[in-house]
């Protein structure tokens, strides 16, 4: 995190300047990917089942999110520590969500059988 990692930005002042071409390119890619994700989710020919389509939608969303982070948010050109802590925070989200999902899934059958018992 010393000034050496910051060489590229030093040329322009306080931080990196994104080129106009890059901004427009990223914007175009985001719009195209939005169209793609809508098509894969709605057109019958792209129906690969619930799980596959969920994965497809999430992969596209993650590509879009990466574009926004790396270019619009300058993470590719910024101090790498900012990228590191941002990615790190996602690990904690993963931890939180995955443990909660794992546990709640385990006791679902008990709830389900109770609901069925009550229904009778």
């Amino acid at each position, binding site marked *: *995190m010393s000034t050496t990692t910051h060489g590229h930005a030093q040329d322009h002042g306080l931080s990196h300047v994104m080129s106009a071409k890059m901004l427009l390119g990223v914007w175009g890619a985001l719009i195209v990917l939005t169209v793609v994700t809508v098509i894969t989710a709605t057109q019958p020919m792209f129906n690969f089942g619930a799980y596959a389509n969920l994965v497809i939608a999430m992969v596209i969303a993650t590509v879009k999110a990466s574009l926004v982070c790396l270019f619009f948010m300058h993470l590719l050109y910024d101090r790498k*520590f900012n990228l590191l802590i941002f990615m790190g*925070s996602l690990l*904690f989200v993963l*931890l*939180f969500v995955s*443990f*909660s999902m*794992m*546990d*709640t899934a*385990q*006791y679902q059958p008990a709830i389900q059988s109770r609901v069925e018992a009550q229904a009778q």
Partner: protein
Amino acid sequence: MSSLDTTMGHSAPSHAEDNYLTHAHGIKSWLLTLDHKRIGVMYLCSTVGALMLGGVFALLLRTKLLTPGPGILDMSHDTYNRMFTLHGAIMVFLFIIPAIPGALGNFVLPIMLGAKDVAFPKLNLASYYLWVFGAVFFVTAMVAGSIDTGWTFYTPYSVTTPANGVIWATMGVFILGFSSIFTGLNFIVTIHKLRAEGMTWFRMPLFLWAIYSTSVIQVLATPVLAITVLLLTVERTLHVGIFDPSLGGDPVLFQHFFWFYSHPAVYIMILPGFGIISEIVGVHSRKHVFGYRFIAFSSLAIALLGFLVWGHHLFTSGQSALASVIFSAITFTIAIPSAIKIFNWLATMYKSSLQLTTPMWYAFGFIVLFVIGGLTGLFLAAMAVDIHLHDTYFVVAHFHYVMVGGTLLALFGGLYHWWPKMFGRMYNEMWGKVGAVLVTIGFNVTFFPQFVMGTRGMPRRYFTYLPEFQAFHIASTLGAYLLGFGIVLAFANLAIGAFRGRKASANPWGGATLEWECSSPPPHDNFAVTPTAHDPYDFAHLSYDEKTDGYVARRS
């Protein structure tokens, strides 16, 4: 190691004309100050006020518990439920979590780094006012229907209880959460970006490693508490059914949400205490801290491991067996970094030139309480034992040993350690030690009987009890009075010292961290000349000077 041969010029007869206390005058100069030292003092006064309020509730509860039933205070069930809830919520959210980072962290952190202030002074003041705002919400909750959910706000009870203060309290928690987040954010940036020349990571005082680890938890965990109480508020007002089982919601999910924050929050409470004890043990043993890197990294390890164990609060809540086994196993591993700290403190004291000063007495008390509190935590982490002990006084005693032992004794130790720096005057050493002994003994008399009661089946949060428990309850209550007296005595001694004590030198204990290089009390900008950092626990170049009753750096 080069010696500090130039920077001690202004340490001589201290009390420089211009210090942060005399820099500006009038109430407005305090209320709108951006000086981290003044904000620290304001945090100190406010959080101690919250401690007193929470303490009054505690004493009322203990007085009622002298006998089964309504007792000599003629207290109703409802009043009792509201009182233990307010005691817990006020102590946790208004005192334990903000006290040490807010008061001592604010005061000491920038000076220890050799900086003029925290990175964002306005945000720092905003954090303080968010605390005030949150406290106002809590007081409103007290008068507007009160709360009787316990400080944990478990659903579905918190959605249906007729005590209408719940929304005020949860919004208060929400606001206090952001106060805590902004404090942590500020400290992280300050430590990363405002370190003085020579202040490498491994020359940072251990208090700063502890505060840094605490801040990481504050930024990562507190937002989850914020969304939890926000959802709870929405659940109670709009009945959205995310946590309410009558609408298809999952109350165990609420507990996952709540403890994803609240277990790491236990380390927000104890880590700053660890940091203070590391400082005290090093400086007052007059010996280089043993295992500096182990202590430093164990703080980070505790902060990160603390995120992996929240499910040990759900062993008997309907959590699945698989999750319980995993959480139980990981919980045991936290004992390792905790024990590393204890052993390193003991090794530092071993064969050192130990000074039996008041801060050291508090450090002794802290270590005793933390060992008992920590080890009983292992009992509770073992699932089979926890089935027997859960929701009993054993749990109550355990977390009071850790949270009160951790925060209160460390806070006192830190205040007695840094008081000469903060206000430029010494306190009465004899009364300081008396206070330390009373607090430690009073604490043990209060809570040790609760371990015994817990193992024998006395449930927590119960209004009444079987006659067989009365002797323990009486002992506990008498201990609480002694503890309360000790706390008041300790604070009174500090307050009297701040106004009437003899003037303190710049470095009365012979500390080598940077805060001992500026005058007592520090000037408005902390340092006349920005210092250069060296090994924070190398005391070789410091020698006692009778003229000022303090230590000065000498050319080696």
